[in-house]
Every structure is written in C-alpha cells, then in structure tokens.
C-alpha cells in the first residue's frame, strides 16, 4: 500500500487525542480499527495530514449494562460483539449483525463506533443503532454532547460528528423482557457490504407490540429508520396482516438506487421480504424461541 504522506500520532489518553484533533482540525483523522480508513488511504481517496490512533488509549474497549443503559466504548470491536454472550442473550439484532459484518479478519480489528462514524450507507451498525434508538456521545476539547442516532446521519459518509470530536460512547436502552430482534442481510459473498439489510428490534408488551424499531441498510443515501412502519406496529397484535402492512411501509421507506447489485424494484422487494421475515423471527425470539 502506497498512501500519500501523513503524520502518525499515538496519544495515551482521550484528552491528549482531543487536543491533537483540536489542533489539526480538518487535517486530523481518528484511526480506530482502520478497516475503512486504511483502504481510503491506500486508494488515495483520503489523504489527511495527521492520523490520531486511539488504539493506544486504555479502557476504550468496553461493553456494559448499567443504569438501564447498554454502553459501548469506541474500541469495542466487531469480533467482540460476535462473541458477546450478553448480546447473544438479549440484544439479538446486534448479535445477528455482528457475524455478518465484513469477514473474520476485518472483524478482528474494525469497531462499531468506527463504523458508525464512517457512516457508509451500506454499513450495518448504523442501521442496527437506528432500530434500537441509540444515543451517541460525542466528545471534543470543548465538551460533550449527546446526539440521537436518528439525528446523527446526514448523508453518505456524513454525520453530525465534527472533525475535532470523538464518538466516545454508544448508549442503547437496556433490553426489557420480551425483547426480540433480527438482522437479515443480503450479500453477494462473505465480506461483502449489504445489497439490502433490515434490522428489527421488537419489544412486546402484554401480547402487543410495545415498540418496534426497523432500520434499513444500503437502500438510501444513509442508513434509514422506517418510522412509518415502526409506528404502524406500535400497540398492534403482530398478526400476518400487521406484519404485511409494516413490510409494505418499510419497502416504501426504502429509496434504493439501481446498480449492478440489482434494480430498484428488486431491492424494495428484498426490504419487504426481509421485514416480514425479520419481524417473524424477532417475534419468536421475544417470546423466548429461536
């Protein structure tokens, strides 16, 4: 790999990292797992003057449930998510998504936070966080702010994140009993980005839908939240008719482009099919099955 020249920094603390980012402004870039940034450097699509490597900072690799919130640190890697028994038992949508990210080698290094910060419309984690109604904690030298996942993405590879900020934590409402989820992804091979993927995060309440989160991958300029479909399910019994209706609304919410992966019609159809299948699977899991 022959990137353009850059300077490399290895801060020992978040404060030090924030100082560096503050100093470099647009010329600085956080290096987390490097699985998106390094390819960009290699292809010379990006040539930042400074890389601020956060891998040298202690205690950024964590996942914990505390005070009704699931908290994820910036160095929590895809592979750790794949192996987490906490996620497997209670956060099915995340547990489903993790092993479908990229390939095993990339999962060893790539991080959830990095993926969200990168904001590839074909990336998977943003969709998952949209379905789960996550909060993103953004920290800079000037202070800390919280942005809802649904307000975070603003287009392909663009987010609310300032160049001087670090995504320092992801916060997700802790799973209640009767929660079920699923992540269905259509890919052309292992290691491929999604052609279409659908995240479902379902909380049942007394036999009815308490809340339903539905996220869509690769069918719009950014990860999408199918809000109409979500709303149609709130308080409903999850019968075939409700599922079909929500799936149709999700398909409508999709705004895909035709490319060598398929036509608009095709991608919409996969959104519909996956929303149906995903809701069924999530429902089963919420009831303790699958």
């Amino acid at each position, binding site marked *: 790999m022959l990137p353009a020249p850059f300077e490399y920094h290895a801060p020992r603390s978040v404060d030090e990292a924030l100082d560096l980012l503050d100093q470099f402004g647009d010329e600085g870039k956080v290096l987390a797992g490097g699985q998106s940034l390094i390819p960009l450097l290699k292809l010379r699509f990006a040539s930042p003057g400074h890389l601020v490597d956060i891998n040298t900072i202690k205690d950024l690799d964590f996942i914990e449930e505390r005070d009704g919130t699931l908290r994820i640190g910036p160095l929590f890697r895809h592979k750790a998510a794949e192996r987490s028994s906490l996620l497997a038992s209670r956060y099915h949508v995340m547990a489903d998504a993790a092993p479908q990210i990229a390939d095993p080698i990339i999962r060893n290094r790539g991080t959830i936070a990095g993926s969200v910060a990168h904001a590839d419309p074909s990336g998977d984690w943003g969709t998952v966080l949209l379905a789960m109604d996550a909060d993103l904690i953004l920290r800079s030298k000037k202070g800390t702010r919280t942005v809802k996942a649904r307000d975070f993405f603003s287009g392909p590879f663009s987010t609310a994140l300032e160049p001087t900020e670090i995504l320092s934590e992801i916060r997700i409402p802790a799973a209640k009993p009767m929660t079920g989820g699923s992540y269905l992804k259509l890919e052309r*091979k292992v*290691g*491929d*980005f999604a*052609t279409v993927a659908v995240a479902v995060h379902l909380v049942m309440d007394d036999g009815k839908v308490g809340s339903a989160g539905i996220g869509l991958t690769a069918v719009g300029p950014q990860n999408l939240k199918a809000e109409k479909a979500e709303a149609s399910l709130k308080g409903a019994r999850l019968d075939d008719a409700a599922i079909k209706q929500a799936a149709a609304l999700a398909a409508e919410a999709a705004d895909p482009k035709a490319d060598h992966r398929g*036509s608009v019609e095709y991608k919409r*159809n996969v959104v519909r099919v996956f929303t149906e299948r995903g809701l069924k699977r999530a429902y089963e899991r919420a009831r303790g099955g699958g």
Partner: protein
Amino acid sequence: MAVETPLKGNIGDSIKRKEDDRFIRGKGNYLDDVVLPGMLHMAINRSPFAHAKIKSINTDAAQAVPGVVAVVTGELLAQHKLAWMPTLSGDTQAVLATDKVRFQGQEVACVIATDPYVARDAAGLIEVDYEVLKAVVTPQQALKSGAPLIRDEKEGQTNNHIYHWEAGDKAKTDEAFAKADKVVKLDTFYPRCHPSPLETCGIVADVNPATGHATLWMTSQAPHAHRTLFAIVAGLPEQNIRIISPDIGGGFGNKVPIYPGYVVATAASLLIGKPVKWVEDRSENLISTGFARDYYMSGELALRNDGRMLGLRVKMLSDNGAFYADAQPTKFRAGLFHIVTGSYDLPAAHVVTDGAYTNKAPGGVAYRCSFRVTEASYLIERLVESAALEMNMDPTEIRLKNFIQPEQFPYMSATGFEYDSGNYPRAMQLALDKLGYKELRKEQAEKRKKGELMGIGVASFTEVVGAGPGKHYDIAGLRMFDSAELRVHPTGKAILKLGVKSQGQGHETTFAQIVTEELGIPAADIEVQEGDTDNTPYGLGTYASRSTPVGGAATAMVSRKLRDKAKKIAAHLLEASEADIEFDHGKFFVRGSPSKSKTIQDVAFAAYTNLPDGLEAGLEGVTYYDPPNMTFPFGTYLVVVDIDRGTGQVKVRRMVAVDDCGVRINPMVVEGQIHGGLTEGFGIAFMELITFDEEGNCLGSNFTDYLLPTSWETPKFEMGETVTPSPHHPIGAKGVGESATVGSPAAFVNAVIDAVGHLGIRNIDMPVTSDKVWAALNEKGAAE
C-alpha cells in the same frame, strides 16, 4: 504392529508437497522479495479515460519531486522504437500511449524514483491533456457502421473487426439441420472475468551497463518464450538475457502475456544503468492485465425426435479489447473454441467466429483454461440443458444417448480434433451414484408441488489440453514442445530441470515423482528446478494444462533415456549381458535371479567411478518432447441448488465432481487442483465480473467490486475419479489443472436453470446473481 514406511513418491503416492515447507514458513521467494543494491522503483500513470486523444503530456511537476530519477513517456520510447510492441496474436500493442489512449487504465507514462512512495506521488503529478473520444464498449457496437475507429494508427484498418475464423463443415451441417425434427437454440454470453492471481505482476530489471547483460526477474509463466520475445522486441542479444521467474503466487493465464510495465522497466534500467523494480497493485492488475472470456455465443442444435443430436451450429463474437493480444496458438484465431462439440458424437458441426476491438483492456488469456476451451464447454453444456428441457428429457438421458462411446476412441470430431481416449458414461454413472440422483429428482418433484425451487445441474465436459503437437500449435512461431533435463549425481541424488514453470501446481513434487517411478530414486532425493532461463532447458511454459502432458512426458522420456544407460552400467557391475538385465523400481538384476541386484544409487556411483569400456561418464540427459496429440480429460459434474423466491438467492447444497484426467501422479495434488478449479468455476458462475459503464469505466477494479469466492461461501466438494489413461502419453496422464474451471460453470448454471426451467426460463447469463434470478422469476410471476 506394522510400521508405516514413508512413501517413496511413486506414481499414485499422495506424498506431501515438497515446496510447501518453504511456503508455509514464509520462506518463499516471490518477485517482490527481490531486492538489489541501488534498486529504483517504477510507478505508472494510467489513462482515466477509455478513449481519448493525448494532446500533451507535462512531466515538469513530476520531474521536480525529490527522489525522481526519470519520467518515461511514449515519446521517449518512440525514439528507441519501443513505443509499440508485438502481441502474442500478431497484433501490436502500445507500450506507452503516444497518439491516444484506447482503454481506461492504459499505460501513459512512468516515473522512476528512489522509493516506491515517491514514484507513486510523482506519477499522480504528471499532467496529461486529453480530448475525450466516444468509447466503444461492446463488440456489437464496435462492428456497427460509423462506430469510432479504435485502431486508427493501423495501416489498412478501416473498422473495428479483427478476425474471422471458421471450423467444421458448413454444407454437411446445413444438411443435418434440414433433416432435423427439432432445432434448439441458445444465445448466451460468457462475461469478462479476470484470473486475479493473489500475487500481481511485476519485474525487477537489472541491465548491466558495462556487460550489456540483462537479468530480469519476472512473474512469468513462460520464461523461455519471454526471453526470445524480449530479444526480438528489444533487439538485445538473446544470450545476454536471463529471465528468472521466481516463486509465483498464482498465474491462471494472467502471467502469460508480456506487459508494458516489463518493457518500460527494462528500458529504464538500460537507460539509467540501475536495477528498476515495478510491481503493480491490485487495481492495476484488474484493469490492465490479461482478462478472460468476453465471448458472445449463439448455438443451435439439430435433433431427432428421440433426442439424438445430428448437428451443431455455433456463432461467436469475441470482445478482444483495444489490442488483439490473446495468448493462443497462431493458427487459431479463437483459440481451441472449436472443441465446442464437447463430449457428443456430433456428425456435423460448423463454427463461425469473429473478433472485435473495443475500448477495453487487451489480452484475452485463457483463465485456467486451454485456449478458450472454457467458453466452448460452457456453450455446449448449456445448450444440451436447453435441449433436454425442450425435448422433455432428463438431462442425463440426453447426454447418455449422445456421448461418444468408449469403443469409438480414438474419435475424430466434426471440427478436426482426434480425441485420444474416454469413457464418458462411466464417469457420469459414478457421479450420479455418488449424488443419489434419483432420490434427489423425487425430492425436487415434491418440492415443486409446494412451490419450492430446487435444481440439479449436470455438465459432462471434455477438454483439449497439452499443446503441441508442435506442427500445429505454436506461440508466436515457437513450437509447443517442452523439455526436461535430468542429472543424477554420483551419490544417487538428482536434479531435474524443466522448461515449464510452476505457479502453485506442485511441480517440485509431481515431476520428481515421475522420475521416482521411472528410475526408483526417492522423490525426496530429487530437486526440481524451473524458471531460470540460464539454468533450464528451453520450453514453452506452463499454461493450458500442458505441464504434465508435455513437460511430464519429457520427464518420463529423459528418465527412460538414463535408465537405458544405467542398464549398461548395471550389466557391467553384475557381469551380465545388457540384454539380460531387468529393472524394477530402482533395482537392476539379472533375469531370473532378483536377489543379486544393484540399486540405481550403485549404478549412479559407478557412472562416475566404474564404467564399462567405451561408455561416456556421467548419468545426465536432456529430452525435448513434442507430443503426438493433445490429451482429452473429461468428467461429469453435478450440482444441487435451492433458490429463495423472495430474494433470488441461490444456495449450492451439493456438488459432486468426477474427473478423469488419466493416470494420477499425486492424487492429493490432483484433488487440490480440482478444488481450486471448482472454486474458481463457482466464482465465475455466481460472482466474478469485470464490467464497464457506457463511457468505458471499469467497474471491477478492486476486490470489493470484483468478487472472489473464499472458503466461507464455497460449497463442499464431493469428488470421484475414473482413470482412462491417455494412450499416447508415456505415463498415461492427461493434465488436470483446468478441468474444473472449464467444466463447473455450466454445472452451476444448469442447476439454476433446472430449478426454474419448468417456468419457461432457459437462460440467465453469468454471473448468476440473486437479482437476475429474482428478475427472471418475477417476469414469470413466480417470485415471492
């Protein structure tokens, strides 16, 4: 308890690969490992456009970068008559563009610098002023009247047509069609794909300004032929050129052509007087080096009502890119595509082929295939699938009915090949038994009632590999023989030197095993050397599954030559007459008294120490083998798929592959070759595609767009073998490197068509992606 004796390495022994020790330990020596004192690095500036006039090139900014030693343009090369070079198909190709660029990624200028980063930085600073021209991206567009003329620099070239070539008998074929009860037609496209070896192409060129000696480390599948071509192109005396092809990380045909980067690096080393290294990156490899396929094919089969085939008509139009640089024997403009009658006893066939220039990368190589046999095999196997559907016959039944029968060999095909040997029904039967074909057909019928889509695909391919014979087959005039030199040392150890060149096929093991079989020297005691032209006998190289058929035959023959001499020495040692000496696996003895014997090691020592009068010292020899015929490996592949009606996804449930490549030297190595080939066939069938937009931009320029299968998605392969030796090969072997890539794509696609054929779907072009399957189902109202 029986003690297991280690295998000696006779034919049929699955000994471990000798070369793997160094590869597994990271001790291989690949091109990029070659580092010379004072070595400079080259980077290439490439055209961003598919078709554009070059108005001017400004290299000032690049020249000014500290560390830049030289910037080479086409103009500079033209002063040395090196701006153009001949191709392997008798055309010319630009080394660096002077007048215009003709494909995206074409080489325009090169920077030579003290380190690779600087070279890359400076290459980006070369300013080229282009006037963009309309691009031609399909051969159909290319042949329309009024299409932009791509090769306007070629004298007498007034359109984009390259060649017209025919095989077979038109009149006889027309007659067959006139008699037919039914004619089945299939139009299909074998899309452009790329061999994509893991190691890309490169060179370290070291021309010594004092002696004029050029030492070129090159990723070459054919070092000797390349040396001769270098001598001719560059005008260097051939004895001063040494090409060393080090360990190669995969070739698959991609390393057969000579690329502009090799020529510029050599010229630069000559002009600057220092070694120059050039190693292309992944995107450069994908967009500019030898692609494969890109054949538009149309086949018609004339049949009798009972399913008997009467005749075959084929029309083919090839997209050869901007320069006709296919690597193939001179006489054959579309390679050996006329093997298209396949495994069937077709009384008449007529094949018409045409080629066209387009604004795409040149260099149609046979990606793991013997000169366009893959395309041919695909067409006939897909066409037979169509015929089975149209005739309402089981796809195995129609094949069994039309196979060339075992007793018909040697069989003269309607397009002029003499098939050496085969037993097609036996291979098919074994495959069907392994799969449990009948049960699966029942399951399919049940599923179909429930609206579920399941398919069983069949392909019974026949290949033609192992070129020569030299009187018919040549590369750029060089006859396709091959060579082996064997030197048995006094202590009974040996060095075998070959004109072919392994790229991962395991030559260091299998060729040693041939010597083991013929002379009895354990394989562990035989060092196999290849790739260094100063140090190995002349040969045409490794591609088209020719190493075992030709180089392997040469190895057997040279071993026998030495055995004959060894017999004389043994007779002397045993004090017997030569006529009474018998040989069995490394032991010479007097007929009738096997207890009194001399080993090959005894004899080898005597060859240097104790010779009979009148016999030359030494036990060394060299053989150049020109095969009397090609060999014809074959097999039957079966694939079972399930299709998701909601997404169009195809899941390969099972794959059974029965191969007959004649005698298997090292069965484990053979199986490895088949595994690799099946994986590539799977990739081609379902995901690999180099495609272009209307402006000629390549849309498959990296591995996120050009998809290669990995162990994760590749199905499990269930393998079987039959052995029908080649009657003309010294050890009966046929070559197996490519069978699986040739035979399997049709099996995969046929499985999909078998699942949806009842809906009236007859074709889905490769790669068979889920969106195409869903669209086909949707059109028939059968999608979820």
